């Protein structure tokens, strides 16, 4: 078991909340979280619908291990059709609201239709109701969180909401929970705001029981925690340095996209690295990093809690930004820093605060600013377009101003909210957009990490590192070391990572555990908690099933083989420095073999036999 076996269906058009049983037949095939919600979405919407129309649905979903004592068992996802990519979106978040949903007795909330007026959902155990959000519309995430905690006089309530950027239609707005954790990518927050749904407030004290074999579960989870506690990455690297442990490593191997992917190494990397976050600053003798922090149930605790230098220009006379909040992860440090050429740690931390405060994805935002900077420097846009901002690479002022404008959708912020693809198209330079399927790249240059090129090109949600993180193998040697500059064996490697990740996501565990865990560590935990027989093999098969389901959704939505590609810059312009000097990404060497390994046709469509084998 471990599932609560309960779905809350919220009809925003009619203002109703109804309970229904979880489809256990699907749960046995798709587990929970990403997989199970994708199954519901594929069943319930036409993949061709406009993502921002009432016909799209938005699902908040937990996994069977969410809310249990399994380490990192606190994840939830937001699944919907993305307005940024037109593909299926699944954005995964930690924090505490996922476990709270389970404690309130639910596996999943399905939102459908569109409310006439702004509303929020209030859930207290099995009681759910829609309440007016008239007073909340136009407020930031941080303001909304404070107001709702006060209104309900409940400091223990967990809150997920959208900020002003989503209300203004920024296409990469996320759903922020617990102030600074984000279901960040692909514009899932934009969809939520399009339904006039401002927030979800959850409080539960029913607990998560229903463990199929409690004794085996306690022993399997204890064993697995030991593995995390004895692994150098999960026991030391991540808690001490956060994901930022990667900054100097990736820069040295020449896979650090810099200035909109014009270069692959950033001369300012050391100034925005994990090490820099530990350095005491001149003004108050304190380092940027205040502490590491855990999400629900996580024994790794990679989260960063930071402050901006109290003397920094960004927070002069702004006491509301002087406290500690969610600090820089590797991805945000890269996108806001290296990709824009800005090496001012405090400017990046401030911009990251703004992304959390008004709920937009720092990866897509930083990458869009980088594209705008290149548009500006090549003369495609001018001061007239930017409202007087000198959008030059390396300008901290341009970055922080851009963040403030994107937060509220004012001035040039409206253009930036389009994302890199639409921005570059609008100004006649589509080739400057570093995106796949309309979504901005994360922080690994595929010229220096060949497998990641294939992973990006074939990711079901557009460019993304979390759909198949072959960096783990190609750079860190986990579980086996492969040559990052070779394409050999990469199609199979990418497929393996994609399938395994889809399974891990669907359990409710965090993908960062896989620096130490394999499916051999995860399967006993799932098997002890859930009914059914879960082995590494059956998990991998579930992952493959999920991957094919997502793929089918995307093909039905109108995407084709032509969308499985990379920007020309990465395929034609060689890396200029570092170990990958002279290299481009050799996607054409990998893609046909990948389709074959997947059991897809040359056009990238799952063969009938494949779908039948996987029961999709």
């Amino acid at each position, binding site marked *: 078991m471990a599932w609560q076996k309960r779905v809350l269906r919220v009809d925003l058009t009619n203002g109703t909340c109804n309970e229904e049983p979880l489809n256990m037949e699907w749960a046995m095939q798709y587990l929970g979280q990403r997989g199970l919600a994708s199954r519901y979405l594929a069943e319930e919407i036409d993949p061709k619908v406009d993502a921002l129309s009432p016909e799209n649905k938005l699902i908040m979903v937990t996994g069977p291990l969410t809310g249990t*004592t399994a380490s990192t068992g606190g994840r939830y996802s937001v699944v919907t059709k993305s307005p940024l990519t037109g593909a299926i979106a699944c954005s995964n978040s930690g924090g505490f609201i996922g476990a709270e949903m389970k404690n309130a007795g639910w596996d999943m909330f399905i939102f459908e239709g569109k409310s006439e007026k702004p509303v929020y959902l209030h859930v207290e155990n099995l009681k759910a109701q829609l309440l007016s959000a008239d007073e909340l519309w136009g407020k930031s995430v941080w303001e909304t969180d404070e107001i709702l905690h006060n209104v309900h006089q409940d400091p223990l309530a967990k809150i997920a909401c959208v900020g002003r950027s989503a209300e203004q239609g920024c296409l990469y707005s996320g759903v922020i929970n617990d102030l600074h954790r984000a279901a960040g990518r692909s514009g899932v927050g934009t969809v939520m705001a399009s339904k006039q749904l401002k927030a979800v407030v959850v409080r539960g*004290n029913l607990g*998560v029981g229903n463990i199929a074999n409690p004794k085996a579960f306690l022993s399997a989870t204890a064993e697995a925690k030991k593995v995390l506690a004895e692994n150098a990455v999960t026991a030391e690297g991540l808690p001490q340095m956060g994901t930022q442990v990667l900054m100097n490593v990736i820069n040295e191997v020449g896979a650090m996209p810099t200035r909109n992917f014009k270069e692959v190494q950033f001369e300012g990397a050391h100034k925005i690295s994990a090490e820099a976050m530990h350095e005491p600053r001149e003004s108050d003798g304190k380092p940027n990093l205040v*502490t590491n*922090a855990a999400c629900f149930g*996580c024994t790794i*605790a990679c989260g960063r809690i930071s402050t901006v230098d109290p003397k920094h220009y960004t927070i002069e006379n702004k006491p509301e930004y002087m406290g*500690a909040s969610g600090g820089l992860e590797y991805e945000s440090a890269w996108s806001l820093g290296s990709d824009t050429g800005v090496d001012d740690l405090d400017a990046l931390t401030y911009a990251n605060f703004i992304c959390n405060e008004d709920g937009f994805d720092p990866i897509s935002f930083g990458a869009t600013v980088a594209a705008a900077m290149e548009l500006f420097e090549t003369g495609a846009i001018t001061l007239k377009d930017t409202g007087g901002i000198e959008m030059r690479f390396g300008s901290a002022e341009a970055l922080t101003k851009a963040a403030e404008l994107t937060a509220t959708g004012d001035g040039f912020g409206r253009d930036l909210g389009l994302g890199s693809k639409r921005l570059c198209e609008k100004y006649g330079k589509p080739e400057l957009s570093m995106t796949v399927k309309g979504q901005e790249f994360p922080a690994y240059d595929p010229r220096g990490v060949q497998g990641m090129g294939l992973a990006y090109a074939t990711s079901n949600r557009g460019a993304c590192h979390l759909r198949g993180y072959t960096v783990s193998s190609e750079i860190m040697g986990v579980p086996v070391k492969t040559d990052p500059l070779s394409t050999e064996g990469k199609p199979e490697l990418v497929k393996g990572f994609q399938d395994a990740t889809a399974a891990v996501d669907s359990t409710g565990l965090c993908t960062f555990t896989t620096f130490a865990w394999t499916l051999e560590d995860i399967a006993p935990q799932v098997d002890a908690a859930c009914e059914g027989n879960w082995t590494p093999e059956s998990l991998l098969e579930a992952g493959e099933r999920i991957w094919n389901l997502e793929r089918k959704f995307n093909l039905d939505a109108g995407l084709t083989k032509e969308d499985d590609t990379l920007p020309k810059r990465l395929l034609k312009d060689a890396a200029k420095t570092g170990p990958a000097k002279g290299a481009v990404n050799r996607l054409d060497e990998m893609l046909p073999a990948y389709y074959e390994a997947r059991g897809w046709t040359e056009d990238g469509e799952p063969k009938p036999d494949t779908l039948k084998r996987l029961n999709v």
Partner: protein
Amino acid sequence: MLRSLQLESEKCTGCLQCEMACSYENEGVFNPSKSRIKVFTFHEEGRFAPYTCSQCAEAWCLHACPVDAITINPGTGAKDVSEDVCVGCKVCTIACPFGTVNYNADSGKVIKCDLCGGDPACVEACPTEAITYVDASNAGMDRMRAHAAQTIKA
């Protein structure tokens, strides 16, 4: 030797494994809201603080109870609530200066830390040793040692 829980907030990451272990040990479900130990987040300060009953020698809760439902466990020194005797009047929750005795609406009784009979589940569950179970007479030993270390520096 009497032992007591030592809570070191600077080591806490806010993961709530202690709350899950406590609720599972006592209620058979993973349910932080039924935990006798609570972790508080002080977001703007970037701090987390675990907190539970310190097992006062002269326990206010014990003296306040009108039906003598709270007694001293001779083995652990814990102030144990007898579910059979407790009438759920909640006077102990008012008497406790620290708020560590609480009412459980499901059972109609109060709940508080009983040191799990001498083998606290939260201690075992804490991944960062922010919660330890140490000699009650020397609960400050680690801090003393840290300061002692200062005196040997040149």
